[in-house]
């Protein structure tokens, strides 16, 4: 497949937990706020001088210290974050916002607060279901976070300021989505590896500083005209995935990743936030409305249907359901989801992986076999 030479700019942004654009913004007096879960609304962390940075642990070599505190049966994403935090990698953040989304994330928060005591930290209690009362609850949760941020950082995270942040967020999401839509074409104009570099970079960089790079990438991707030969169109679903080498390995076997429905992916994350009505309520509605994670108790059928529809929309030949080992929600849901998708005639490969890149040979073999099983 043809690769866009300028993609190395995005690789550079993904090589460090706090990249050069973050440093540039901090030099300008802005404050990065870390977060750990896609149920933390980025828009709220974009108030005033604040900007959101999704916590990652790029290049992590081991989690020896975190293993001591969190045990060896905990998801390696949360342990990698703890390991990096203990090494001081996030010390320059203005604060961290967690969610009580899953057992592992909650215990990361407990251990991080115990061992490192961030200057500002907050845990959002995201309901496990949708509907009126849950929406009211979560809107109040966001209000409490907004008030706490106002008090701590001296920023306004309400009213017109927040409405402006929503508009700005939507405009940026449109720019990324336009790139993502290039994957729908036959042949696609970008690879999955390229798109997800852009996508993950958008989660870890100040969006205004990243936007020129995104627009430049879009322009050049269109000019390039296709990614060259591939064997099958693949959709990737599942949990947290910010290691691009995982997608690169899939694509190295001819499986072009054309669609995503995973935690750090673009669908449904880039759907617009409503620009009318109470901004906090709109953000709450957008966050709870995402059909994404099995931590939401009542949405299995919707999640399964969303995967099928997305696969159809992007003409995916098969779906890879991936999850980090020890993830309870995706671990249990994976078995049900795999059966349900297969019953609906969708080819599925279920993969368990670690947060850090590894077992490449096994991954290649499984992907090769999957593509061959689809007759591609």
């Amino acid at each position, binding site marked *: 497949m043809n690769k866009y030479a300028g993609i190395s700019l995005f690789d550079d942004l993904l090589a460090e937990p706090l990249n050069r654009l973050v440093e540039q913004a901090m030099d300008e007096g802005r404050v990065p706020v870390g977060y750990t879960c896609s149920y933390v609304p980025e828009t709220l962390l974009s108030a005033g001088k604040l900007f959101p940075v999704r916590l990652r642990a790029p290049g992590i070599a081991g989690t020896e210290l975190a293993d001591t505190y969190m*045990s060896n049966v*905990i998801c390696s994403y949360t342990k990698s974050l703890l390991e990096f935090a203990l090494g001081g990698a996030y010390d320059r953040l203005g604060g961290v916002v967690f969610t009580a989304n899953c*057992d592992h994330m909650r215990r990361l928060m407990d251990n991080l607060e115990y061992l490192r005591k961030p200057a500002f930290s907050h845990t959002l209690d995201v309901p*496990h279901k949708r509907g009126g009362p849950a929406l009211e609850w979560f809107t109040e949760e966001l209000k409490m976070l907004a008030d706490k941020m106002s008090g701590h950082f001296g920023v306004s995270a309400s009213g017109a300021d927040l409405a402006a942040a929503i508009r700005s967020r939507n405009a940026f999401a449109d720019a990324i989505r336009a790139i993502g839509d290039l994957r729908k074409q036959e042949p696609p104009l970008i690879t999955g590896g390229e798109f997800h570099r852009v996508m993950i970079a958008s989660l870890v960089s100040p969006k205004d500083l990243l936007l020129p790079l995104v627009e430049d990438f879009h322009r050049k991707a269109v000019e390039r005209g296709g990614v060259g030969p591939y064997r099958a169109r693949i959709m990737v679903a599942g949990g947290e995935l910010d290691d691009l080498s995982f997608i690169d390995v899939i694509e190295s076997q001819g499986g072009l990743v054309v669609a995503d429905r995973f935690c750090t992916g673009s669908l449904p994350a880039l759907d617009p936030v409503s620009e009318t009505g109470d901004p906090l309520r709109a953000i709450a509605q957008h966050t709870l409305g995402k059909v994404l994670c099995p931590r939401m108790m009542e949405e299995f059928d919707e999640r399964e249907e969303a995967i099928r529809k997305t696969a159809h929309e992007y003409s995916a030949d098969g779906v890879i359901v991936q999850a980090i080992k*020890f993830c309870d929600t995706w*671990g*249990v849901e*994976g078995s049900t989801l795999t059966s349900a998708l297969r019953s609906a005639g969708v080819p599925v490969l279920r993969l368990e992986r670690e947060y850090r890149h590894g077992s490449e040979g096994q991954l290649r073999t499984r992907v090769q076999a999957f593509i061959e099983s689809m007759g591609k």
Partner: protein
Amino acid sequence: MNNIRPSAADYLKHAKYFIHILFSFTMLAARRGPISLLRDMRRYPWLFILLRAPLLMGRLAAGRTGLYREANELLISFIVKQMIDVLVRTLKRDDTFILHQEMVPPEISTAMGLSVWPAELLSILLPLLDSHAAEAYIDRSENEGIPPDICSHVKMTLGIVLSGEMPPASVIVSSNLPCDGNMTGYEITRRKNNAKIFRLDIPFNFYNNRAVEYFAGELKRMIAWLEENTPGRMDWERLRQICEERNRMAEKEIELWEMISARPAPMAAEPVYLGHLWAFNADPGNPAATRFFHRIADMTRRNLESGVRAVPNERFRAVLWNPPLLHFSELFRWAEEAYGITLVIDSMTYNSQPLIDTSTPDTMLRDLGKIIMQGPMARHTRGPAENYIDDIFRIYHRFNLDMVWVAGHIGCKNTMALNQMLREACREKGVPLLIIEYDLSDQRICSHEGIIRQIDHFMQNVMKVNRNGEDPPDPRRGREGKDFTTIHYAYRSEE
């Protein structure tokens, strides 16, 4: 070594409770009818395991004497009798039958005239009766694609469902407690049963009025949903009676806690923790459960007043944190004999919010909500770490303890990720801590021998004692030189 031998009176009482158990089994046959019962036994092979209850009673009674021994016998006969009542209701499977997740206490559904089957009941009871009972169900779950690292208690329940051995229900009530694995597993149960389901959402931080009101609202929505989807109708007067009965039982339990705070303890181990586990989770508000607690409290008082210790050679007092070691039901009896360790209380028993204000429907729902949110296990697996760690020290001091045992169930990731914080807190406070690494339901992960060895190491290296002066200790030998670690195999072969 405990040199006290059971008296003739002890044996007579044992025979009495044995007859009680046989009578309960006979009642099951009579109430179901022999043909139906045979069909049930074919469809639900675990019914055969329930027949081993007298053996469990024998294991718990052995090496104990007096009222402590009798309390254990009473406990098993009580559980069998109540289980038979639940079974008869369940096996009928009329349209009032619903499936409840274990963390959804049944008071409300019972008040609605519904017949509740706690889905996880078998996953608690069967490993207690047969230490290998979980294995086939766990394997079934894993063969269906449930990852091996998921809690074995969850996997066993799902294995029963997937094997078609869970009584089928068209209506289910579950929640996001106690852990992600259990919560997510209910989708499998729902699909297998093609059932309608209501899921209760319990907030993360629940020690505030906002959470109490939100959750009371959830309970109201659950009632409305059950009225819509079952023949059940809310009877607030019935709920008041159930709550008041539950309060009476809780008051007796509080009395019991006061008495076992004394050193040496007049009552311990199974009558305290297993009695609570059954009475408060499977059948709260049942007068029979209250009577059981009355009798246990009465036996305890008699021991206290006459200066009789439950464990004659009590040297150390322990709390057990996390659910009890299900497949090793004789562990505490062994610990009593080997080291004079008295298990005074456990984390699943101690409740900081035991009583319900029955003045209005709203007060009842709010307090039932608090019991669910702030009850044992729930308050340790939701909320921040201090819910878990501070509780340990609160109980340590309240019950005048010498050591903390944590049942470090490998599948409970929630608590595994707190163990180092707990170690450091215990070290700072000078509290001896043993974390037993094992699996709750599956002894293939850590055998009984492995568990005993961990305890031996702790007692020798931290508490600086050998087994009652025996030196060197032999991790395989129990009372009277029996090879303790193979006792359960002997029971199996006798059967």
